């Protein structure tokens, strides 16, 4: 009761403040929600851009990890935030295209957010153990038909989960859900380790998660999903294999606000991001992680995310991967 009264009382000055704030956004620090834990791919990416982005914005950026449920907890925090641009979200492939495509129970959808940018692309690589006898993607498909093949992921509704299924589907495996066993792990590191210690046959994940294993000949890459080859990964690209549809299958990091974020704020973010991603130190850091810095404007970002979502959604519907319960 008291909190309600408080909310009403504080709402009155806030409505005045909001109109004033729009004119000179930003006039106070901006909270940036990272929906994944410290040390994860999203967290490192977010903290790397924090410095150049903060310089471009001219106000402090408060990085706050709100973790849980594959990024859902943090995403909901921004979904329900005021659309004044003072609470923004680091959106990621898992939480913003794969999960919405696969989980009917998710408390948000793509329509609940306005994407202002995508600034990082991660190629996806499929890898096996060098002693597995699998040399090419065709070997893997042949083995799938024999049976007994499994793959690891970082959990249900993650990029790794749908990536393996999508690759098998593209290469003509019928009913991939029943022919291969999905063994989910807790986190991307554990998913790669599972292939390493023989728990699973293969994994399809961000190139950055595999680069040191590949450099050390502990894992063998058999496919990269980009059109161009990826440095350090001696494997054919999706274009080489004549599967351009797989080029949709990449990881990305972007920034989003609540759905009704005003246009002028979105435009400002576009400008700031252009400035931040031009920073040579930032580009160098990101490339050392194996990421490709690729800046998208608010419109391009929305179209890209929508396109990837539709691809994944169609696949999930076709194979019956939607989780309803």
């Amino acid at each position: 009761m008291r909190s309600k009264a408080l909310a009403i009382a504080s709402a009155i000055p806030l409505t005045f403040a909001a109109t004033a704030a729009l004119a000179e956004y930003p006039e106070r620090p901006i909270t940036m929600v990272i929906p994944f834990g410290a040390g994860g791919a999203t967290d490192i990416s977010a903290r790397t851009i924090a410095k150049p982005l903060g310089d471009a914005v001219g106000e402090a950026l408060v990085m706050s990890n709100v973790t849980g449920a594959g990024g859902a907890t943090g995403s909901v925090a921004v979904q329900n935030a005021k659309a004044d641009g003072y609470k923004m979200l680091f959106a990621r492939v898992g939480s913003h295209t794969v999960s919405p495509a696969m989980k009917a129970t998710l408390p948000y959808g793509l329509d609940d957010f306005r994407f202002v940018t995508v600034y990082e692309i991660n190629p996806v690589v499929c890898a096996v153990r060098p002693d597995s006898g699998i040399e090419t993607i065709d070997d893997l498909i042949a083995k799938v038909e024999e049976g007994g093949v499994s793959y690891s992921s970082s959990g249900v509704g993650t990029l790794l989960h749908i990536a393996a299924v999508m690759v098998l589907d593209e290469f003509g495996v019928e009913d991939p859900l029943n022919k291969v066993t999905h063994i989910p792990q807790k986190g991307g590191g554990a998913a790669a380790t599972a292939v390493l210690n023989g728990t699973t046959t293969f994994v399809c994940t961000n190139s950055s998660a595999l680069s040191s294993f590949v450099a050390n000949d502990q894992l063998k890459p058999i496919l990269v999903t980009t059109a161009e080859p990826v440095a350090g990964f001696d494997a054919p690209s999706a274009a080489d294999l004549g599967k351009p549809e797989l080029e949709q299958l990449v990881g990305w990091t972007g920034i989003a606000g609540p759905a009704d974020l005003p246009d002028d704020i979105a435009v400002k973010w576009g400008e700031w991001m252009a400035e931040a991603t031009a920073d040579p130190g930032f580009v160098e850091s990101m490339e050392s992680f194996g990421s490709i810095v690729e800046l998208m404007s608010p419109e391009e970002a929305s179209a890209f995310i929508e396109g990837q979502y539709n691809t994944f959604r169609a696949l999930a519907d076709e194979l019956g991967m939607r989780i309803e319960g």
Partner: protein
Amino acid sequence: MNAFDSLMAGLSLVGNIQAVLALTIGVAVGVIGGAIPGMSATMAVALTLPFTFAMPTIPALLLLLGVYKGGIFGGSIPAILIKTPGTPASSATILDGYPMAERGEAGRALGMALWASCTADLISNLALILFAGWLASFAMNFGPPEFFTLILFSLTIIAGVSGESLLRGALAALLGLLLATVGLDLVYGTNRFTFGDPNMMGGLNFIAVLIGLFAIPEVLAMVLNPTGHLGKTRSIGKNWVTFADYRRSFKSIVRGSFIGVALGSIPGIGAAPSAFLSYSEARRTSRNKEAFGKGEVEGVAAAEAGNNGVAGATLIPLLALGVPGDVITAIIIGAFMVHGLQPGPTMFVMNIDIIYGLFIGLILSSALLFMIGSVAIRGFKYVADIPRRLLIPGVLILCIYGVFAVNNNLFDVGVMFVMGWVGFLMMRYHVPAAPFLIAFILGPLLEDNFRQAMLMSGGDPQILVRGPITWFFWVLTAVTLVAVARAGFRGVQDKVRVKTSS
């Protein structure tokens, strides 16, 4: 390049003021970060990472490793002084550390925590240097079936920390297992006991549960009985740990260190189970079992040896295979990559000087931890002198702030208070909190690995006995269960005898 040359090359990398300074700052930041409840060693390392991007390779890595080492020790300071573990790994330290502080022996407990931490740290670092390759290949034999049997065995710790009544301990453990099921199902991705609330989808936050269970009941007890503590002394008391204490606990410290090394080299377990396992082993083999849980200095030593023993060993899979064993080492791998290094077997060929530099730095870090830890204890121990009527409100504020800071989520603060009442009722009815916590940590690991094993085998339980490692843990579990049952049986007989003779 032979080993001596490599050593010299490594020494030249570390033997400069910049590297030593980075390490010193790292340890100091870690101790302070670890000592702030809710900050935790993980958060301290994550916050330090961006600062290392612009630094030269060796100081950057040493800075992070220093924060890591310092943080694991720093967590024991609030665990002992205010019953609030600064980092999850130090929750076992509460069991005997806080009763000691209550008795006016905070200085002794803190001193023992430091000595045990440094000893374990040194042993762990030596294990890394001498046996990295061997331990790493051993750890790679751990698939889900091996994990399952290891965790099953670890659950027998519950018998060791149940206190007077095994039945009450088992009850607490069941409650812990039950609460651990909240969240998303690993294999199907469906919601379990979330009641439609997105906040529940991630499961109950571990630190919120931890602080709620241990610290908040003290606050509630104070609120309900504000004058209950009057007349009890609570000061620093005997100032420092004696060498006799250290010698008496030495066996437990060494055992704890080896448990830490073994569990640390296996990716995915973490420091908290190691601390509990070390603690329960120390109690099991001790001559005065009864004193454990009531303020036994050896209990503090065992718990701290168990968690610091992990800190060097988690670098074994990191350096030898490039596999991060826990969240902290995952962050450190990021730092390696920023500096163009690929941890793994080739790093031992390509960058052997850096490897040796890190080894020397790690050994140095044990000594620095001892010095900086001593200073920190001298500063922090006066917390024990603060009158309780001032201390407890301060603790409450610190808890709320700390739990909020973990995840910037008010829901977690609510979880903490609910768990506080649960913990308070448990305290009232003499249900021990430690088994609850152990079950809460190990429950999800047990379930996930069991289900992964079943997926691997297509539902055939034979996979759970697939190799020597699984057999080893099955036998160990059986032996422990028999020992627990016999001890329980003897206890009943003693009671009967007492009754008939009186």
